[in-house]
């Protein structure tokens, strides 16, 4: 991350500034703190710590229920109904652990991470641009001293060998530089020999890494702008009922800051029928598993046109840029409550499924005096037992539906306590007995109260959403993946081809030298393949180098080298010809 060269003296390197004279006083202290903070921020280690911290927040959010997701569970933790107890929950609350992604600590970590990323990227981008624009493949003075070296002999002149090599390399998209002779370019006699120098992967690895990291800014921008323009609303619709896209008709409603009433599309949805089915055979594999959820709907567009449509899981309906998802479903028994001959409540209940296989709902009838409330359990399948009473089961199909309720009289406290639609606050209510009902039946509860289970339908929970950020998120994902691949797999390498006429036998000796900055194994194969191609083009013959003396002690594990007969043959045969040599056979000499 440092842009300066520490090996040269400061006066030779204009990038190194002379030491600043230290001031005194509070301003200098603040300034030096900022500088120190910035230096801390740009360190790679800091980025690692911040990543670890981000991981820690994420771990907390995985283990602790999150309020925006499962508000009910969080309430249960706070009240001690579930979870580790009220004391622990209070501590968790104090640290904002129930809403990690909305907590200042998380946002601060994210901000620091982006700051650190920016501080890291700015000099890297500058360096990369300079490299791509101003550098050219460096020449070699002694090709024989490079890391990977292979030699071949040919009868063609040196110039032709250079030209062929340059052509081959350009064809494989290498950056190529041809150097005729040192003297021709006005260099000293001791300058580099005539050669072809080439470089590849110079910008793709680092460039890919930069692209990968830059895509996070696109991702962030898409998410932030998306939050402003987005809309999401939910509403449960009973079979046969209708829903219009107006702000007041949603049960829950999360508009972005820039979403206005005019942004609604104004269509109307009629839910004709909801289909649901299960594997009914109790002996079949997957018995009881659902096999079908489908809503048949009629859409009336703002311009009056009507069309039939289907909404299924994974298959949302798109209407004027608004997506309609089928998220949830349940049974909707129509319950009527009559007090002294007057109907005080008549509505479809949107009973929601519980873990036990039954459905829960509540009736709240403030029109009665005193208030009347029913806590309702709905069992889709409760066949009659031997004694004539229903036996509730957990089976989901509505073959023998049963409404089981507990009646309460008193104060419903509507508007004073937080209650969901299917929840009854019984703290100020008196129990007034319970009963069960079959479809079409009624029961007299005394006190002039009659309760009827009129008919059974189903309801579907729809979610309507508009997310204009999706295309930009896709773009960010494409940039991210497109950058990640070269960042991991592209590699920077150099090749030099030096051809010289051998004065003893008049043939030309071509040295192909190379060096890889990453992935030396892959480069070995590439180098060998190039040497073979060049030898074929020049009708050349590969020269096996004399064995390199083990100057560095015993040689190590021949990592990445071809094994078996091929390499054994290569190491025993001093010279192999290009045509018969299998891949990687040249066994380039290394120093």
């Amino acid at each position, binding site marked *: 991350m440092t842009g300066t060269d520490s090996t040269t003296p400061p006066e030779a390197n204009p990038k190194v500034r002379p030491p600043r004279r230290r001031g005194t006083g509070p301003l200098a202290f603040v300034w030096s703190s900022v500088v120190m903070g910035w230096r801390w921020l740009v360190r*790679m*280690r800091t*980025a*690692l710590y911040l*990543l*670890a911290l981000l*991981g820690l927040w*994420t*771990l907390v*959010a*995985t*283990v602790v229920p999150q309020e925006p*997701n*499962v508000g009910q569970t969080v309430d249960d933790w706070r009240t001690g109904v579930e979870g580790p107890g009220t004391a622990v929950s209070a501590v968790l609350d104090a640290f904002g652990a129930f809403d990690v992604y909305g907590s200042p600590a998380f946002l601060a970590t994210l901000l620091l991470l982006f700051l650190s990323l920016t501080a890291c990227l700015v000099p890297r981008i500058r360096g990369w641009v300079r490299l791509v624009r101003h550098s050219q493949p460096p020449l070699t003075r002694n090709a024989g001293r490079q*890391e990977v070296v292979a030699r071949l002999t040919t009868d063609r002149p040196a110039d032709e060998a250079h030209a062929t090599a340059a052509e081959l390399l350009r064809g494989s998209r290498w950056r190529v530089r041809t150097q005729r002779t040192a003297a021709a370019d006005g260099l000293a006699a001791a300058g580099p020999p005539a050669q072809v120098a080439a470089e590849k992967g110079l910008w793709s690895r680092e460039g890919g890494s930069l692209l990968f990291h830059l895509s996070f800014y696109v991702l962030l921008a898409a998410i932030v702008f998306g939050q402003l323009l987005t809309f*999401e609303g939910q509403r449960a619709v009973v079979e046969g009922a209708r829903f219009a896209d107006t702000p007041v008709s949603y049960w829950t409603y999360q508009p972005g800051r820039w979403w206005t009433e005019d942004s609604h599309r104004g269509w109307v949805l009629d839910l004709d029928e909801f289909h649901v089915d299960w594997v009914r055979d109790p002996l079949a*594999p997957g018995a009881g*598993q659902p096999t079908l*959820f489908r809503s048949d709907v009629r859409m009336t567009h703002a311009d009056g046109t009507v069309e039939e449509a289907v909404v299924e*899981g*994974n298959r*949302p309906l798109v209407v004027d840029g608004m*997506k309609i*998802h089928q*998220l949830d479903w349940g049974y909707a028994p129509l319950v009527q409550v009559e007090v002294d001959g007057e109907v005080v409540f008549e509505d479809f209940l949107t009973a929601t499924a519980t873990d036990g296989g039954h459905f829960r709902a509540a009736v709240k009838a403030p029109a009665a005096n005193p208030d009347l409330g029913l806590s309702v359990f709905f069992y889709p399948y409760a066949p009659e037992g031997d004694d004539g009473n229903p036996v509730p089961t957990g089976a989901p199909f509505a073959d023998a539906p049963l409404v089981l309720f507990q009646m309460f009289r008193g104060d419903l406290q509507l508007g004073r306590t937080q209650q969901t639609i299917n929840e009854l606050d019984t703290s100020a209510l008196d129990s007034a007995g319970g009963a069960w009902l079959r479809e079409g039946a009624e029961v007299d509860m005394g006190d002039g109260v009659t309760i009827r289970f009129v008919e059974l339908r189903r309801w579907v929970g729809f*979610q309507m959403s508009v*997310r204009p950020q999706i295309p930009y998120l*896709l773009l960010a*994902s494409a940039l*991210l*993946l497109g950058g*990640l*691949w070269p960042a*991991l*797999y592209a590699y920077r390498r150099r090749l030099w081809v030096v051809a010289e006429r051998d004065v003893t036998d008049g043939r030309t000796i071509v040295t192909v030298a190379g060096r890889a*900055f*990453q*992935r*030396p*194994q892959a480069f070995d194969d590439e180098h060998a393949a190039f040497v073979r191609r060049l030898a074929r083009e020049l009708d050349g013959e590969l020269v096996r180098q004399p*064995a*390199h003396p*083990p100057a*560095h*002690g*015993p*040689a*190590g*594990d*021949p*990592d*990445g*080298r071809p*094994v*078996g007969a091929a390499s*054994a043959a290569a*190491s025993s045969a001093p010279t192999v010809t290009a045509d018969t040599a299998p891949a990687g056979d040249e*066994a380039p000499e*290394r*120093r």
Partner: protein
Amino acid sequence: MSQDQLADLSRLLYSPVTLLLYVSAAIVCLYALSTRVALHETRSGRPVGERLQRLGIALAWTAVAAHVAHEIVRGLAQNRLPLGNMFEFTSAMALAGALVGLVYLTLVRRKPELVGFVMLAAAVVVSSAMLTYADPGPLMPILDTWWRTFHVTVIVVAAGIFTVGFLFNGLHLLRDTAEQGLAAARAVPTGRSTVGAAHIDDLAPGVVDDERDRGADDPGRDVSGRVAPDEDHEVATLPREAERNAMRAAISPLRLAVGTFLGTSTVSWVFVATPTTTLQEGLTRALTVNLVLVALALVARWFVPFLPQASTLDGLAYRIIALGFFAWTFGVIAGAMWAEQSWGRFWGWDPKETASFLTWIAYAAYLHARATKGTRGRGAGWIGIGAFAVLMFTYYAVNLVFVGLHSYAGLS
């Protein structure tokens, strides 16, 4: 054949056939390794060893083929891709790991002597899937979509690749400990890192080329110590018995056993916490998992002298994990696209989403650590181990313990 017969056949193909093949491939390959008859030494007059190694590789391919056959038959038995519950995920993960490991070691990096470890890991994962075995059955309609096929396949393959990466990470750390211990015993100065340990000249079976190593400052390069093959030397690489014992002695078996037990306990507690098992069942499972892995760690310790040097294993782990990271990233993005299609929101911080993000962060930290001075080598190796623990947490804990939209374990 009827569906029932296909179901029976798929079960038979899985266990015992596939499992036994993995185990026998592991035994043959590891035996070949223990006599140090890797393929590139076969010209030194060891045709039996060559045949053993070849037999091991052939067994490995047969095991993978049997595993593929199991997946196909199971798919036919339930008329869908066998990626719908935890048993099927784990099975596919083992297959992906075994296949990628086998292809990588035999065809890409040409280190066939390490295949035995991959087969051993595959056998462990295959048998662990039996803990969550479920008979073939239909799919929840919400899962029945092309997006699921795509997202789940990519994620499962990535998890399989990460498993191989974990294996190499573990072997790297073991070998590194042995090399450092040996260096310390001989009073050869080394740095803290792997690279330093590999510098020791008299440390069998090899050394790293000095010049190459200085170039290792470049982020992400392979530090794998390549030196030109030298025929005479290869016979000499057979570690002498005293040397083998010295390397093993550098790793304390007690520390290794206790460390592995504690390390695997960080994840195996999920079996105790799973709501669908009783406390006793859960404890038995957790303890079994811990003890099996401790035994395997001790087996790996015995094989340490026959392993390639630490820096090579480090490079293998890095390359495999880089591939897994790419696949995981792709899989998470595909999951977000599916979520958008299915639930109308691309990201909702659901426990599984959160945990998969956590796994991504952990592996990103590994890749960064490997490019950062001071954390390269051993440090990065430990981060890789931690990242795999996070992956296992994501896989088991979130499927079995935490309630969320991804609770599709298929257990009831």
